[in-house]
């Protein structure tokens, strides 16, 4: 495209929104330019290809550009914000690192003024968007479980990711506390879906996974006109603490009896639990105060059924 060529639509960013808008307008034959401040990601560059995948979640695939420091990154001052920056400058944007979590806003989120007396209501409501939420779920290939009493009815096109040992333990703890829980919707193929192979490893995901589904979706949307590539989607073992617990599952009892770790004792010395509690202290997360909820959950998690 020549430097001064006029376009009909200019889209800034090729992430979850930009790529979807670009795709939705492709058939209109308008001249569309999507600008992205990062480059295309090569599948071979993703951490899941190597043994150091976990460490790279805190280096070149760190969610904060302030630590990640790629050539495409620039510092962002979030010192005075409780919400710390999490982004990725590259084709696919935040979907490169977003772990495929796929929540919807609640109906009440659109009516904060009329319901709660704060800020302003949106000019649209959940019900006007519901059809598009459903369509987006279908296009992205969302897995989940219908029946959650905490949200309006929805219909994920694929079954949910398995609970695994971690999810089962989590559910037991939440039931013990009487707290609500439900498997999250995820933009991860748990079955073969519309020409795409299912994820070979369905686990909670974290930054640095080989996109396969989520980031690759956006790549495909931008390459409008290119056929969708059939590819096997793979994921990392998941959140470090979840993964640790999965790995230790077979020897957990023996480990507790025989291994003594000099991480803070806390609840029974479970290594996975230690790492979860101390991997992200409140100060690092920028939280001024931490409620009692996490401690209650930790206690429930540690209790034996």
């Amino acid at each position, binding site marked *: 495209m020549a430097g001064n060529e006029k376009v009909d639509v200019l889209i800034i960013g090729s992430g979850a929104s930009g790529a979807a808008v670009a795709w939705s307008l492709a058939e209109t034959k308008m001249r569309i330019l999507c600008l992205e401040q990062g480059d295309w990601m090569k599948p071979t560059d*993703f951490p*899941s*290809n*190597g*043994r150091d995948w*976990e460490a790279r979640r*805190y*280096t070149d695939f760190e969610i904060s550009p302030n*630590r990640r*420091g790629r050539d495409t990154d620039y510092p962002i001052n979030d010192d005075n914000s409780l919400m710390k920056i999490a982004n990725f400058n590259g084709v696919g944007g935040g979907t490169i690192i977003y772990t495929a979590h796929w929540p919807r806003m*609640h*109906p*009440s989120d*659109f*009516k904060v003024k009329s*319901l709660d007396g704060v800020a302003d209501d949106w000019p649209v*409501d*959940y019900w006007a968007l519901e059809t598009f939420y459903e369509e987006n779920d279908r296009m992205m290939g969302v897995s989940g*479980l219908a*029946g*959650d*009493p*905490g*949200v*309006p009815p929805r219909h994920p096109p694929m079954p949910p990711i*398995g*609970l*695994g*040992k971690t*999810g*089962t333990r989590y*559910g037991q703890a939440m*039931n013990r506390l009487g707290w*609500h*829980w*439900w498997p999250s919707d995820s933009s991860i193929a748990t079955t073969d879906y519309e020409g795409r192979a299912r*994820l*070979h*490893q369905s*686990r909670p995901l974290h930054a640095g*996974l080989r996109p396969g589904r989520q980031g690759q979706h956006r790549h495909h949307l931008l390459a409008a006109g290119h056929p969708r590539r059939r590819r*096997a989607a793979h994921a990392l*073992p998941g959140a470090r603490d979840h993964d640790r617990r999965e*790995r*230790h599952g077979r*020897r957990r009892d*023996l*480990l507790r009896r*025989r*291994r*003594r*770790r*000099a*991480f*803070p004792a806390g609840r029974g010395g479970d290594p996975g639990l230690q*790492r979860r509690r*101390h*991997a*992200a202290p409140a*100060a690092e997360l920028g939280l001024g105060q931490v409620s009692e909820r996490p401690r209650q959950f930790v206690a429930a998690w540690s209790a034996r059924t």
Partner: protein
Amino acid sequence: MAAALEPRLSDVEINDLGKIAGTMVPEDTALGMPGADDPAILDDIVKSIGRDLPLVREALAAIAAKSGGAFAGMDRGAREALINEWYAGGGMPAVALGRVIVGAYYRDDRVLVAIGHEARAPFPKGYILEQGDWSLLDAVRKRQPFWRDDRVTPAGER
């Protein structure tokens, strides 16, 4: 000041790091698992510190100060107690130290094999996740819907 500008840990710092790592993750011969002070693992830790070097240095210095420079000569129980006490309030240096130690430890082939994992990258083979106990949701399903329906007035009218 000069030491702080060094691009990698000194031999003395590496030695200290090994003592600390071996205390935090000791060897377990019964499980066939090396300690984090194993030469190969320690070498991997040192090579992996990267951008966490300043924080790791800060952690080493804090532990040295807390022990009066006598950490290596303390018995295991005393070393564990010291690290436990320091870790609780150690902030970002403690997080960084724990992360580099455990991150390197759990990619060692012997450790992975000992805990029943294959010593390989996640891709392309992936892993199988068990479905788990879905009946745990039975109690949750019985609850009445509790999301706020913005179409219903406080009086309960639509």
